[in-house]
């Protein structure tokens, strides 16, 4: 009996320890290249133990100075909350899980998109491991729509800030289009990433990910002012330091892994593992750019693996022009579907196909297979 109780206690203790750590839910790398065209869906099951107040952190590398990250709902590709539509990326990007966000991600998962950065991993930290300490209690200030208001902040407020902390600007009366701007003592931008950054009901958290940011917070004029909070469409109330006390969880067994990334070889237009599930949701878009020098009789060779057979599902593929209408690449009124039996598909270019490829590019759609490679072979 005692052993049984001890066992239960150990299980509870270990579960508690597990749940109190920073748990990795996505293992990269996943490249989010230029032009808002790359993204990755974190599956809903990764959020099954997530609660309101937990913190999602996206760790990044190879970040361009103008990089932006979007947190999108797979339902309609809209931002899960307005302030997460285009977040400047300067290091790790954090998102606090609100009740509304939680219901979305538990049901449908979360899309990470944007441009010009690479994800190394994504983690979740339980709310219990996040400590918010109020370091500035006012006066509060209404940020007018003409951006004219600004609140000076003394450097003493930030004396305990450490690398990795978040500086949270707590706000109220948030209007649509609300934005925050942080300036230094000389009214220059404190951080180019916080120049009209969108904010929501939960305020705005500025993550201190570099030593240089810490130094800026200690650079003050003779009056001690090191920061000026400005913006529009909200009431500035308080500042808190947000610190995470969780330790990284070494167990990665349940984490989702990003698809392998391959370097394309000459002639290759795609290489990887792109699943075209049986619900018809899969497609791959190629722009007209790689087809600009094509000639008639060039061919496209499409390699794939069939997904495990499912009753009543016949794997098929279809080639469409890359416009809003997705007309069949052959010019046919109705889409042409090719049955897949496991052997490569070869698409020869006649004049119609060539014209469409060079003008619009190509969309591949279908079901029941995993696309592994697309190669463009010249007739020469």
């Amino acid at each position, binding site marked *: 009996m005692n052993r049984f109780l001890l066992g239960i206690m150990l299980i509870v203790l270990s579960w508690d320890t597990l749940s109190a750590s920073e748990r990795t839910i996505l293992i990269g790398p996943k490249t989010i290249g*230029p*032009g*808002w*065209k790359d993204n990755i869906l974190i599956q809903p099951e990764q959020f099954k133990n997530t609660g309101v107040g937990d913190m999602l952190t996206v760790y990044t590398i190879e970040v*361009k*100075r*103008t990089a932006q990250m979007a947190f999108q709902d797979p339902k309609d590709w809209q931002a899960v909350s307005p302030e997460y539509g285009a977040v400047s990326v300067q290091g790790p990007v954090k998102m606090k899980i609100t009740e509304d966000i939680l219901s979305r991600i538990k049901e449908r998962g979360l899309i990470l998109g944007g441009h010009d950065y690479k994800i190394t991993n994504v983690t979740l930290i339980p709310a219990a491991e996040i400590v918010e300490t109020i370091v500035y209690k006012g006066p509060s200030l209404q940020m007018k*729509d*003409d951006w004219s208001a600004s609140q000076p902040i003394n450097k003493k407020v930030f004396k305990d800030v450490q690398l990795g902390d978040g500086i949270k600007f707590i706000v109220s009366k948030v*209007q*649509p*289009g609300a934005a925050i701007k942080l300036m230094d003592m000389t009214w220059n931008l404190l951080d*180019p990433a916080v120049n009209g950054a969108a904010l929501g009901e939960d305020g705005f958290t500025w993550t201190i990910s570099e030593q240089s940011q810490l130094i800026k917070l200690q650079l003050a004029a003779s009056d001690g002012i090191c920061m000026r909070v400005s913006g529009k469409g909200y009431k500035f109330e308080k500042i808190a330091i947000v610190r995470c006390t969780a330790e990284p969880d070494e167990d990665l067994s349940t984490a989702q892994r990003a698809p392998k990334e391959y370097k394309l070889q000459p002639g290759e237009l795609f290489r990887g593992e792109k699943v075209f599930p049986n619900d018809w949701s899969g497609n791959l878009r190629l*722009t*007209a*750019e790689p*087809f*600009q020098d*094509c*000639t*008639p009789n060039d061919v496209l060779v499409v390699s794939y693996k069939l997904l495990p057979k499912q009753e009543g599902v016949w794997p098929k593929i279809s080639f469409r022009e890359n*416009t*809003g*209408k997705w007309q069949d690449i052959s010019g046919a009124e109705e889409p042409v579907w090719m049955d897949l039996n496991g052997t490569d598909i070869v698409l020869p270019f006649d*004049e119609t196909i*060539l014209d469409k490829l*060079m*003008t*619009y590019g190509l969309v591949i759609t279908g079901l029941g297979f995993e696309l592994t490679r697309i190669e463009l072979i010249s007739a020469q």
Partner: protein
Amino acid sequence: MYKMNGLLLFISLFSMFGCSNNETVAEQSEMAQTYQLVNPNATAETKKVFNVLAELYGNKIISGVTAHIDWNNKETENVYKWTGRYPAFNQYDFMNIHASKDVNPKGWLDYSDDTCVREWWNAGGLVGAMWHWQVPANNGTDKTSSPGTKPTETSFDPSKVFQSGTEENKIAMPQLEQVCGYLKKLQKAGIPVIWRPFHEAAGNTYEFEGGKAWFWWGAKGPEVYKQLWRDFYDYMVNQQGLNNLIWVWTAQTKDNVWYPGDDVVDIVGRDSYTALQYPLSKEFKQLSADYPTKMITLSECGNGDEVKMSQLSRIWEQGSRWSWFMTWYDYDYNEGNSDEHKFADEQWWKNAFAQPYVVTREQMKELLK
């Protein structure tokens, strides 16, 4: 077959440009006669610029950039830094007239000080202007040109701009007078302006189901838009006496029904951020066929979100003969937030200026003498 076409194209181009000087001059002269300014009272300088455009059309392409947001020559300096030469054409934007110091003491720029434009013109550069005309947003505080019902969009009705007594008229006329004032100053200084208002009116109406206009001037459809253009033309030319304007209308392709008319348009433009040589060539041919009495120009271009603009040499080889090309400005590059120019980088410009058919500012200065 495609290669054969390429060969035929090369042969035809060779025969076109490889002919004797006399034939070329005759063809050019014929071309120049084909294209006429719509304003019979155009100033001598304006006629001169237009005739230079017409003479070059088909044989050369004029290099151009869009100014950094509004009223400066920053983008031209980028090109000079990369290549040692200036583009021939700089296009300004009246987007921020509400923040001009002559009408707004808290403003951050001053359109009434046109030193940058005068300097550019005096150095031999062509002057252009467009207008991202901003009107009050539905929330009453922001300014925007995006139509819609959201707080940050505008329900501004383009059909009421010239209707006395309407809210739209009360908002629009002071702005219009303000812009006319700046343009009159340029006219007085002998500076013609290649004028491209109300651009991309059809938006993506014809691109996909559910497509629509993305600027308020296109929000009520083609008939309202055409009337707006014609009233606008009448106001500026006939009522305000602006005779230094060369009027450029921007096509979205497949939007012929939006064309305001041969009598109020001098040049037809196309803006492209899928600027690949093959589709550009098709669009050029289509626009040339649709508007045979007008020169056709690439009024905006640059790398898009998904495709990198073709090298100018490839665009030319494919058969496009745009009057000018005009790369878009990069806010982040100009503000020091980015190391790469998003729309057209150093390498692209080096390729462009390596081509003998690309006209620089230095060459334009000679042509305008």
